[in-house]
């Protein structure tokens, strides 16, 4: 008898990832679950703005296309889909998917997870004494309360498990943690309990490896990057999970990319904080206990993970309006490209000063010389073929930022020579939606599962 495997495939690492990956994951080989992660820190606020304009919106629209491309696999072959595509409006997302199913003449059982959205309850929560203080600065939320756009608790695996146990073929959540989307189906299949901390932690580690899509299967990999094969046809990662909590990371045969100890290790350290305490709603995973080994071509075995009881808090993702910004760029060419760009920057700043414009921040970077590595980059010298002057400003006052955007183009005619690269037109003024991480008592967040 062969050992049982639960096969979870990653088909989306963020909203805007490959539109084709979900289909490839169901077509290029057998899988049990397709996991699609659409939400990044600021995505919720974008979706909230869309919902304000149209109450039937507020979810990741790309998911409709993804479901269209995998519909047959779900209805004919029993692949189940788990996605946090619901954003700030999971019920509307479910309606859209039901509409699609109907149009395709299919019947679909969808589990809708809600309860993470705290925006309607925000005043009540603050009145009850939940300060929702900023996790890094300690400031109380009151300081930005009138500018809050969205507030969602990161919720864990349990409502997804409930939806699966009620035979949902597709589970749509709002702000589930990225890792729960992978851990939940594994936990459901093997019946792991709330205190099965080691195995829950293993599921979280599998989730961390899968949550950024191809970033664990050869994408953005520094190790041996030249020789990673056929990234044009990159295979997204798959976790083959065993009952003991161990799992093998792999990808479908005849796809590009690579799954190796190096590609997986790079993803394991991505966005890592204190490795001993990777906190999730279900469990605290200790990344210093992860064992990882080569298990054949494009196969990496991960095992031995320890987990601990979770905290009594949930993290809350709050988005608030925080002024305006704009970034202007010009390209200066050889000879003395950097020196010309530096002179242009001085001229620009003097003009802004004369106009009496004051910014909360003004930042100049010289792309091609020092923009990303600062002083570590060393001297660009006089021979750089070109240097891009990149000036960004930020202010609470839109008009101030708007005025800045008018001061870039004139430099082409009235500043230093050898300048080009202004085809894109005047810089765009962007409203800043900033991120406010906070904690809240678990007991005040109740999730609900509805089957539609």
């Amino acid at each position, binding site marked *: 008898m062969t050992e049982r495997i639960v096969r979870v495939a990653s088909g989306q690492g963020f909203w805007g990832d490959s539109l084709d990956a979900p289909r490839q994951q169901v077509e290029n080989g057998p899988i049990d679950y397709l996991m699609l992660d659409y939400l990044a820190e*600021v995505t919720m606020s974008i979706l909230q703005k869309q919902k304000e304009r149209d109450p039937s919106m507020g979810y990741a629209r790309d998911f409709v296309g993804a479901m269209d491309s995998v519909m047959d696999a779900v209805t004919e072959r029993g692949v189940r889909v788990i996605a946090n595509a619901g954003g700030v409006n999971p019920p509307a997302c479910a309606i859209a998917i039901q509409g699609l199913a109907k149009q395709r003449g299919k019947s679909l059982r969808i589990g809708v997870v809600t309860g993470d959205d705290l925006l309607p309850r925000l005043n009540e929560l603050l009145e009850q004494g939940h300060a929702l203080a900023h996790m890094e600065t300690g400031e109380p939320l009151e300081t930005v309360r009138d500018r809050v756009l969205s507030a969602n608790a990161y919720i864990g695996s349990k409502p997804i498990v409930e939806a699966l146990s009620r035979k949902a073929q597709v589970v749509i959540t709002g702000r589930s943690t990225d890792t729960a989307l992978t851990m939940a189906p594994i936990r459901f299949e093997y019946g792991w309990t709330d205190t099965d901390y080691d195995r829950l932690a293993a599921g979280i580690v599998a989730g961390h490896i899968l949550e950024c899509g191809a970033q664990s299967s050869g994408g953005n990999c520094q*190790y041996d990057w030249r020789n990673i094969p056929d990234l044009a046809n990159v295979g997204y990662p798959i976790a083959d999970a065993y009952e003991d909590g161990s799992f093998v990371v792999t990808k479908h045969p005849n796809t590009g990319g690579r799954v190796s100890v*190096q590609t997986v290790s790079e993803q394991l350290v*991505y966005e890592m904080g204190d*490795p001993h305490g990777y906190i999730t709603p279900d469990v605290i995973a200790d990344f210093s206990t992860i*064992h990882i080994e080569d298990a054949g071509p494009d196969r990496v075995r991960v095992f031995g993970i320890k987990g601990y009881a979770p905290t009594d808090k949930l993290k809350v993702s709050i988005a608030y309006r925080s002024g305006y910004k704009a970034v202007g760029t010009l390209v200066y060419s050889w000879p003395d490209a950097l020196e010309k760009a530096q002179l242009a920057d001085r001229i620009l700043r003097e003009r802004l000063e004369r106009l009496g414009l004051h910014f909360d*921040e*003004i930042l100049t970077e010289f792309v091609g010389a020092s923009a990303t*590595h600062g002083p570590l980059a060393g001297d660009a010298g006089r021979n750089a073929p070109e240097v891009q002057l990149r000036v*960004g400003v930020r202010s609470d006052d839109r008009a101030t930022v708007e005025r800045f955007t008018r001061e870039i183009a004139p430099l082409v005619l009235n500043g230093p020579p050898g300048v080009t690269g202004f085809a894109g037109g005047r810089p765009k003024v962007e409203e800043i939606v900033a991120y406010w991480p906070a904690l809240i008592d678990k007991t005040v967040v109740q999730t609900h599962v509805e089957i539609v």
Partner: protein
Amino acid sequence: MKVRLLDIAHARSGDKGDTANVGVIANRPEWFPLISRELTQARVTQHFAGMINGEVDRFELPNLNALNFLLHGALGGGGTLSLKTDAQGKVYSTALLRMVLDVPDAEARALGLPSA
């Protein structure tokens, strides 16, 4: 002997608010002790002087032959507030790999380290 970190390790970085993390992984397990010894909290703090305005935290992950550094105040406010090209700290990884290590010749030979 001068050894480039770039030649003996790989790295990936990301963001959490205004903090960038850099995970650096030894290319070979036998090179990890040397990397761990050389990449002290003080050395990495010094390396990033002028690029970050906060502290550096250092964590060891011998199980992955890796170290994890948290660079606080590295992202110009972080997330959407940041005006930086690298607002999400994606290439602090390669910035760390610019480091050059001074390794005793005998040790470098014994470990088979590529010379800078």
